[in-house]
């Protein structure tokens, strides 16, 4: 099969959907003339023109709000945040407007829009540029939150997100844009809210999503050499969460490790842990372990990046720990 980059997969998804539906437009900083801060929207201005590929001033609150208003009046905006760190400037419009509008209006005004951009850490960028807000957005009813980890999922899920009539938060990574993966030429869609078993195993289930799942894959490879058979589930969507796929796997392996790049308090791991103990208590042979980031902002020095992020070793140790090894 054809192999393309993550950023190309995203671009194809937007291009294909924009060709299908003239109400879709892309708005954000540097998306048009600069071809995207991370070159996701390369060439889109040439194809669709400046009516539909719109550069904005650095005014996240304003352009997010304008997009919400446009969605209220029938358009289907794709809002690009240069990174989700900057979405905090706009978060009032995301939470108080986009997420509430359909219900507040008694079902009259839906919000067919996507807010997308990179999330989480991307090297030594310091505290203000290294944050993962997946669980913040996932906490809010009215939003859907998608966090793909590979080009195939990125394309199929972004197309679905664009067609969705509810507001979707779509979170990528600077460190994944160059990743290559197989993506078919033919059109396909991936449903929001469906996890996927990426690796079958019998001993321990690892649940993860987004860029950090690569740490789980690496750990699984190492563990396989030691005869430990790990099953890996890629959530792909963190609101809604596909609890059934997780529960089914836990019923088989009886052990669960969750790997998530997020601060530990009230994150996605916490939520999954609750639901698993509620629905599969009798199947658990060990306490669930989560592997998260440090409970701190991320500092600049390389030693901090290392201390902060979930590591292959931590995941391996956690897997062994739930196996009482």
């Amino acid at each position, binding site marked *: 099969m054809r192999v393309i980059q993550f950023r190309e997969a995203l671009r194809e998804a937007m291009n294909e959907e924009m060709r299908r539906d003239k109400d879709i437009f892309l708005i954000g*900083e*540097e998306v048009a*003339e*600069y071809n995207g*801060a991370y070159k996701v929207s390369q060439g889109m201005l040439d194809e669709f023109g400046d009516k539909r590929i719109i*550069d*904005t*001033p*650095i*005014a996240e*609150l*304003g352009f997010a709000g304008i997009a919400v208003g446009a969605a209220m009046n029938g358009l289907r905006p794709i809002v690009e945040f240069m990174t989700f*760190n*900057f979405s*905090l*400037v706009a978060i009032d419009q995301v939470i108080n407007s986009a997420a509430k509008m359909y219900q507040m209006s008694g079902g009259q005004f839906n919000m067919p829009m996507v807010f997308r951009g990179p999330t989480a850490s991307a*090297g*030594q*960028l*310091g*505290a*203000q*540029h290294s944050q993962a807000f997946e669980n913040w957005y996932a906490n809010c009813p009215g939003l859907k939150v998608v966090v793909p980890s590979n080009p195939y999922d990125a394309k199929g899920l972004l197309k679905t997100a664009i067609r969705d009539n509810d507001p979707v938060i779509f979170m990528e990574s600077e460190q994944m844009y160059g990743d290559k993966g197989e993506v078919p030429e033919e059109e396909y869609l991936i449903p929001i809210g469906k996890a996927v078993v990426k690796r079958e195993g019998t001993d321990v289930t690892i649940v993860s999503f987004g860029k950090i799942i690569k740490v789980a894959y690496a750990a699984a490879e190492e563990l396989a050499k030691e005869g430990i058979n790990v099953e890996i589930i890629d959530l792909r969507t963190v609101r809604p969460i596909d609890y059934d796929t997780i529960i089914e796997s836990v019923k088989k392996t009886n052990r669960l490790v969750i790997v998530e790049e997020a601060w*530990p*308090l009230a994150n996605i791991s916490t939520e999954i842990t609750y639901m698993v103990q509620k629905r599969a208590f009798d199947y658990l042979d060990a306490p669930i*372990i989560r592997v998260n980031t*440090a*409970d*701190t*902002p*991320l*500092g*600049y*020095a*390389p*030693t*901090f990046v*290392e*201390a*902060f992020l979930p590591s292959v070793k931590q995941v391996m140790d956690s897997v062994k720990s739930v196996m009482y090894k």
Partner: protein
Amino acid sequence: MTSFTKETYMRWFEQMMLMRRFEEKTAQLYGQQKIKGFCHLYIGQEAVVAGTMSALNSDDRIITAYRDHAHALACGISANAVMAELYGKVTGCSKGKGGSMHMFSKEHNFFGGHGIVGGQIPLGAGIAFADMYRGGKQVTVCYMGDGAVRQGALHEAFNMAMLWKIPVIFVCENNGYAMGTSVERTTNQMDIYKIGLAYDMPCKEVDGMQAETVHEAIAEAAERARKGDGPTFLEIRTYRYRGHSMSDPAKYRTKEEVEEYKMRDPLERVRKTILDNKWATEAELEAAEEKIMAEVLASVEFSENSPYPEGSALWEDVYSEPNYPFITE
């Protein structure tokens, strides 16, 4: 003719030369991956900071965005401490926690480099508010870029700063571009300083390629602030010779445009004034330059020889409470 003294020019020369050589070295080290992350150079804009500092007192306050190396140096933070911060070493002015974008020094009244565009604008007003509250005579200079003035936070802060006569000088360093976006692509009103008019805030445009004009504008604004007449908004027109950050090839502008500004280089201008007035000989200026170069090289050596912070220091400085119960499992 100039109304500034030899001493002022010599100080400008040394300050701007230090900024220039320090950042040229920074660029080189970034290429060698000694410095990581986002790194934004100030080369070309030096007269703005130099002209500001000569018009202020040493207890006045400075706050800016992420393009902050020169501001940090001009506040008196040592080249060693700034370079070590770029390296992420524990001897850096933010202990390796901040990096290029987040230089800080309480001791030098430098309230930091800030990474969220426009985020520092209300902070600058707040710093000045605290001095006013205590009856102090300090003023705060709050820098921002031409891109930052499009943030809503500016308008809220401007209104309150004016309403409460806060002793803050808002300085827009208009270098023509916010990343790849020129000013004209973000507004119908090219005169950024006119944003002040909506709040009846004294405001004007200043040539930022010369330290003299910057000094005069800042001195006037500082006097107004110290008298209790509140804020000023200065649009200081300047230019960055390099790309937005180390990863920007700057294809959105022409070579001719860059060359045009280099012809008006602020550092060369100061050098020429000094020579024309025979305040120093070529040889003396070269000696001064060599001394500065030695200071820069020493800062590199200092940084190379400094250790990285321990990973465990990640849990330090998050709370001032000593035994905060972090979640560790």
